[in-house]
């Protein structure tokens, strides 16, 4: 896949970071406003996808491998698994909300929910980006 015109590249340069930031915002505020780990993670993956599409996969091929999508994916889901396990380690139930709930409507509230959102955000962003590059960018047999 070839890159697109200079206008597209330039606009992408401006757009991609803001989409990325929006994604992070959505992840962090998942327990207060619409969105959450999945929506935010997909947005983050979308910002990377946009970059690769605008610049063309030929140019990005060597770059995308350095981003270590599969590593972040395993890492994110492992963190989520660990948060789930905390309750069990404590001798209580799996997925117990062990952190204090805090005051409602504040960023630091709702116990483990924001933490889970962050872990899921990392996992989903990396997973979707990995699917995208393996299917759309890399040739068959090329290692991620």
């Amino acid at each position: 896949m070839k890159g697109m015109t200079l206008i597209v590249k330039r606009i992408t340069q401006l757009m991609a970071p803001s989409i990325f930031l929006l994604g992070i915002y959505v992840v962090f505020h998942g327990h207060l406003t619409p969105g959450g780990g999945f929506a935010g993670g997909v947005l983050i993956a979308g910002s990377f996808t946009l970059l690769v599409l605008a610049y063309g996969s030929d140019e990005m091929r060597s770059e995308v491998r350095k981003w270590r999508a599969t590593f972040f994916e395993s890492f994110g889901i492992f963190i989520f698994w660990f948060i789930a396990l905390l309750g069990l380690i404590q001798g209580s139930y799996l997925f117990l909300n062990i952190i204090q709930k805090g005051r409602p409507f504040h960023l630091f509230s709702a116990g483990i929910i924001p933490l889970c959102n962050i872990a899921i955000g990392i996992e989903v962003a990396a997973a979707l980006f990995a699917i995208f590059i393996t299917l759309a960018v890399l040739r068959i047999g090329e290692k991620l």
Partner: protein
Amino acid sequence: MLMTALILLIVLMILGAIVALESKDLLSGIISLGIVGFALTIIFLILQAPDLAIVQIIIETLTLIILIAAILKTTRTDTEEEFGTKKVFIWLCGFAFIVIFFLAAMKAFQHMPEFGSKTLRMARTYIDSGLSRTGAANLVAAVILDFRGYDTLGEATVLFTSVAGVVAVLRKVGRKRK
């Protein structure tokens, strides 16, 4: 008003789906699939599900990208349809099955709680005391990460599995030759 909008949008989805399946060019078929997905996004907004609308619109875009990437790597043209006896037989069987299924669904839905009826049992608790029990103002987040967090672990695992599967399937050689 709401009902009219809903019905119009679902009819649009059905038309988009038919075009997606019947067009001779795979690329235009996939773009028609986009109509279905984006109409679904608007329906989610009408149905007061902003979380779903956000996820649906981006997942839809990614699905289209994946499908189009597959097409670009391979071919755009649809396969030739032939009209032999076997084809007619398959068509008749499929059609008969679909008609029977549809009639059964019609009959069943007359005895199902009506569209928009009251919330009961499980979800009652979520709405009444979800905020005080979990501390999350977004009740959907409260459900997916606290009340039903275990499902979400499963869901993240599905995504993990499919990435592992995609990477495994796209290996160049599977077997070592002796």
